[in-house]
């Protein structure tokens, strides 16, 4: 799966160690430790403001972190250690290279509106990896077929429904052959009747063995697809466990209250 020819480590896919993050002096992540094994599907739940989206964005270095380290497949994300042992922000090329191994699906899809579905998908492989157009297009058609949208290859995003846009966005992320997929509330911006098609695409991906970290309020999806559910509250991991354990027998009062409110 690794398009950059580097050796995959035998360790966890994601290894977050004591991650802290401040926004304007306000501590939103207060020391997150999280390991995600290869092939595992982890669902992050928690109330608005609990830090789950911020954490996900840190894993992709869309946000800087103020303390701690995040490794993805053994590689430090967003930072590098100098020979003197200091941790400094990695240069742009290096950050970009490491990000190219991590797919990110946004709440608001963020498709490129000036490009067709097909062009959205081939853009990064051609620009970043230098894949030749015919090859990139063949792969894009394959991915569009996989998300059930091959007939929409030449449609612009404005002509697609929200669910279709999100499925194209998933195909776009997959085109870079990521080792890890991050989903930031992928169905929150969708009309209720369009949620199912996106969740089915994600479930299929999970069954194929993709490592996934998903922030979502879709508890049905968490129950069915997740290997592990993590409950964040106020910037810390309050409780985690298997879906059965978390939904049927939550230990913490906060978790119970949250699940009661949302289910």
């Amino acid at each position, binding site marked *: 799966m690794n398009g950059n020819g580097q050796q995959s480590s035998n360790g966890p896919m994601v290894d977050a160690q004591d991650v802290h993050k401040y926004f304007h002096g306000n501590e*939103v992540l207060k020391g997150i430790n999280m390991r995600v094994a290869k092939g595992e599907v982890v669902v992050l739940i928690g109330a608005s403001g609990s830090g789950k989206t911020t954490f996900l964005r840190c894993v992709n270095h869309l946000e800087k972190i103020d303390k701690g380290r995040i490794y993805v497949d053994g590689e430090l994300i967003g930072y590098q250690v100098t020979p003197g042992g200091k941790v400094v922000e990695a240069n742009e090329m290096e950050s970009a290279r490491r990000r190219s191994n991590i797919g990110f699906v946004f709440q608001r899809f963020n498709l490129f509106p000036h490009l067709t579905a097909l062009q959205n998908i081939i853009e990064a492989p051609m620009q970043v990896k230098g894949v030749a157009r015919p090859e990139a297009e063949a792969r894009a058609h394959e991915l569009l077929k996989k998300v059930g949208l091959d007939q929409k290859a030449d449609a612009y995003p404005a002509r697609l429904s929200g669910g279709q846009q999100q499925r194209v966005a998933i195909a776009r992320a997959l085109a870079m052959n990521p080792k890890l997929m991050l989903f930031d509330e992928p169905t929150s911006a969708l009309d209720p009747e369009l949620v199912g098609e996106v969740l089915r695409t994600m479930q299929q991906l999970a069954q194929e063995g993709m490592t996934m970290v998903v922030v979502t309020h879709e508890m049905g999806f968490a129950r069915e697809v997740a290997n592990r559910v993590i409950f964040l509250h106020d910037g810390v991991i309050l409780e985690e466990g298997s879906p059965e354990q978390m939904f049927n027998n939550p230990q913490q009062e906060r978790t119970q209250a949250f699940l009661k409110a949302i289910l």
Partner: protein
Amino acid sequence: MPIVLATISRALESPPGIWDWDEFRKFLFSRGVLEGVAITIMLSVTAQIAGSLIGLGLYFLRRSRFIVFRGFANFYIWIFRGTPLIVQVVLFWQIFPFLRIGNTLDQAFNFKAQFGLTNEYFVSGLLGALLALALNEGAYMSEIVRAGIDAIDVGQLEAAKSLGMTYGQGMRRIVIPQALRVIVPPLGNEFNSMLKSSSLASAASVLELYQVTLSYGRATGSWITFVVIAIVWYLTLTTIWGFIQARIERRLNLSNIDPGQISKIPWWRRMFGAGIRDTVAPETPEVALPVNDRR
């Protein structure tokens, strides 16, 4: 009413020197006037292209994390927006003689001998006017570029980055192409202005359209005739540009709209920029969202 008619008929019979049909017909397409039109077009196009690039450069300086760059950009804009263009034209015209390279420039290009020109520092005037127009335009374009780029959702650059693109790739391939659609309508207005403000190059003795008609007027005393010739040509240029601008805007929007829809808008409305506002489809349907959970 009778008084008005009498005034007009008297005006039309007025002595040669004020208005002269023969002069008008003779000079409208004369070589001198056409050369002036050519210089006006060349000056405007070059200054607009250079000014747009300067504006883009200023945008990145203003977005720099180094205060020196930001300070320079702000100082630049302060100077060029705070002084009259005609003053800038004269300044840059005279800067070459001041640096003692005015004559060198004239000799290097040898236009004077070639065209039998008599005015000193001809090349200085042309270069100076070009420089002033371009630098001045850059100050205004930076504002337009900024509005265009800032109109694009930050999520676009984030999406580009999440796919492994660098800031530069994301800007070049994703953000700027989208910003262009926002920039083109005000850019068109800027070029319309440029066609007219290029007449200020006359202050640097550049023989563009206005300066040519002015000198004919001075020589013949037939002022109105040559002012009307100038008006006719400026209107021609700005009108042609109006059509070109409408075409460009429609092309840029083709991807967002049904091709069939474009032809439904009458040409006279498209000419005034109706294409964009009337037919652009919403980028993504607005959905009521819970508070955007970024924390």
